[in-house]
């Protein structure tokens, strides 16, 4: 009786152990023999198609080092990647955006690609774009697509009001924009502009470069301090004025994210909406027949400079395929392929060769205006700050929400960004 029980116990224990082993190390094959996984965050139909087509092209030309397309989503990619990196099984090739790379670099998740990229690629992509992915001297990704901030306007309303339509050569200044907004507002019926401000930290930081607002001081010893002086306050104050002083910006849009105000825009409730250049795609596809729109070039403050964030492709530090993965990325970043990807996402390529492509300089869908805006993109200092992500979600986002909700003053906003921000920065001082 006892021996039988003991035997059974041993059998069960062995089975349990077997299960555990199965769970912990799924396969005995060498990861170096498996195809490279490419985690793509493309979501627009055209862009997914372009990506998949390029993967197929690569696999035909390189049967010995195939790539497998894995679909991801922007919504939760960073949480998902942290788990994958910590679990030791990250995708080999990772699509992301430059602000996320800083904290990944800080945790040694990403491979330094500086030695793996061909010279042709290095010189084709603009220096300003390379700077968005160069952290602590390491090149942790290849910048592919960029997104200038613009205004999309209802052309009929602008014509009716008889205001000057800005051009890439002579854009509106912020002062002009504020004045014209007053003309375009019809109290109770129409607001001149909808600023979707729910998730606005990156956008505010990028736009603040118009007045030289950099928000972060990086000392020689890498010590980071947050500063909110006059330059940093300028853009947010102007938007706040539009909302609560001039009444030219719709308060209802404050809690909205990027594409939420579009239905109201089509209905004529807003004369303009603020968004990235990709907003054109939604407008061309969704706007009712006969709706005339025009994209206005970026506003100008002391300069037209905007902070650039890039969509990027990186290689995981633990990938056994680093060189092959870098080759695949270089393939995707070739000018003609960048043109396809840019068209698919309605964003701008970083390749100078690609920017000259006829598809991207045509007046159709105002690609010419979008492409002209790419000259204004500059790397913003926040891309070098390891604690930026925490500062953004924990300090800046709530503070900006409250400020744009008219619940706190600009002084209180500045105080929180600085004081609470510096507490966050202190957590990242040791590497």
């Amino acid at each position, binding site marked *: 009786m*006892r021996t039988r029980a003991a035997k059974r116990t041993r059998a069960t224990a062995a089975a349990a152990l077997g299960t555990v082993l199965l769970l912990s190390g799924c396969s005995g094959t060498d990861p170096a023999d498996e195809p490279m996984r490419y985690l793509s965050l493309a979501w627009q139909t055209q862009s997914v198609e372009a990506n998949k087509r390029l993967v197929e092209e690569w696999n035909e030309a390189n049967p010995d080092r195939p790539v497998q397309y894995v679909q991801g989503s922007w919504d939760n990619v960073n949480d998902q990647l942290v788990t994958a990196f910590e679990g030791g099984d990250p995708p080999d090739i990772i699509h992301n955006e430059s602000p996320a790379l800083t904290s990944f670099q800080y945790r040694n998740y990403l491979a330094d690609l500086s030695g793996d990229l061909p010279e042709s690629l290095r010189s084709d992509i603009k220096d300003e774009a390379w700077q968005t992915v160069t952290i602590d001297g390491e090149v942790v990704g290849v910048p592919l697509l960029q997104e200038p901030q613009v205004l999309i306007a209802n052309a009929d309303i602008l014509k009716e009001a008889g205001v000057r339509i800005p051009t890439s050569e002579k854009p509106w200044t912020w002062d002009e924009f504020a004045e014209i907004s007053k003309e375009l507002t019809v109290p109770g019926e129409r607001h001149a502009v909808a600023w979707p401000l729910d998730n606005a930290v990156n956008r505010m930081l990028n736009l603040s470069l118009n007045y030289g607002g950099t928000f972060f001081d990086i000392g020689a010893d890498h010590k980071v301090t947050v500063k909110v002086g006059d330059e940093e306050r300028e853009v947010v104050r102007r938007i706040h004025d539009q909302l609560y002083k001039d009444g030219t910006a719709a308060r209802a849009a404050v809690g909205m994210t990027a594409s939420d105000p579009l239905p109201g825009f089509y209905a004529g409730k807003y004369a303009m909406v603020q968004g990235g250049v990709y907003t054109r795609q939604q407008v061309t596809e969704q706007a009712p027949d006969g709706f005339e729109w025009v994209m206005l070039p970026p506003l100008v403050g002391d300069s037209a400079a905007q902070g650039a964030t890039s969509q990027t492709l990186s290689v995981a530090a633990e990938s056994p395929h680093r060189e092959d993965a870098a080759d695949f990325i270089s393939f995707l970043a070739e000018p003609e392929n960048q043109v396809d990807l840019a068209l698919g996402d309605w964003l701008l390529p970083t390749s100078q060769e690609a920017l000259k492509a006829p598809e991207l300089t045509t007046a159709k869908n105002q690609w010419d205006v979008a492409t002209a805006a790419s000259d204004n993109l500059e790397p913003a200092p926040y891309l070098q700050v390891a604690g930026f992500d925490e500062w953004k979600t924990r300090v800046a986002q709530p503070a900006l929400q409250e400020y744009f909700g008219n619940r706190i003053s600009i002084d209180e906003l500045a105080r929180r960004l600085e004081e609470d921000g510096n507490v966050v920065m202190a957590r990242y001082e040791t590497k």
Partner: protein
Amino acid sequence: MTLTEASPPPTGRAAAPRPPRPRGGPDRSALSLMIPALVPVVLFSVAPLVYGIYLAFTDARAGIGIETSFVFFDNFAHLLADGEFWLSFRIGLIWAVSVTALQFAAGMGLALLLNQDLRLRWLARTLAMIPWAMPPVIIGLMWKLVYHPEAGILNATLMDLGIISENLDWLNDFALALPAIIAVGVWTGMPQTTIVLLAGLQNVSKELHEAAEMDGAGVWRRFTQVTLPQLRTVIIAITSLNFVWNMNEFALVYVLTQGGPGGQTRLPMLYAYEEAFRYGFFGYASAMGVAIVIVVLAVLGLYLRRQLKEAEA
């Protein structure tokens, strides 16, 4: 690291009829019978729990090739001084207490109703169970649509009734967000509360009710003097369980608000999740988990002691 995971390992005493034991050490045949049950408990419950507690005493953080060292009570010292964490704790307590209380009140009402001899009672009972059959993420998505400022059915209804004059952004308003998610929490948890209370109600003896009625007790009097005292143990069990579940709620709020606007709905579990998986401070996040468990146990201990004392009195 939830309380519910930490089910106590079955002990020798639980293994039913006890033959006279040889002196010294536990019964060996009982022990060998227990091992198959203990292995998964140790592997999947105890080991992660112990590892989590260990992490709470280290400075573990996300990253490759990063050294982890033992820091004793540093994390807990920081935690004590971390105003934001305690703010989130306060939100967690407001959430857990109000959801539990409202769940109980609403569940009790519904249980009393379903205990009556109604027509189509089977249908009503089935309908009352539906929220239970839905995964929290689906519930979150569904309510997100209900609360949608432009297209949501709630705003549309309130507008039609003339109660509000402009659309409210329920989940992004600083004052409305917490009450809005509390309502969803109550809706989600009502079925199990109702079913447990209903089962309890069906055990309340009819004779006592009849006797009380004969003595001239009204409906309310019969409810407070006859029904409630007999339900006491059921009520204690379901409210304490609900409190623990609610305190540890994650998926629902993660889908609905992600803790926003401005941290107004950031429950402690969300906070710990952010700390670990967004910012990568594993050690500190574990310390938060441990602190949450300690506080929940303390609150629960006080509550149960009071209730049981009252029951004895």
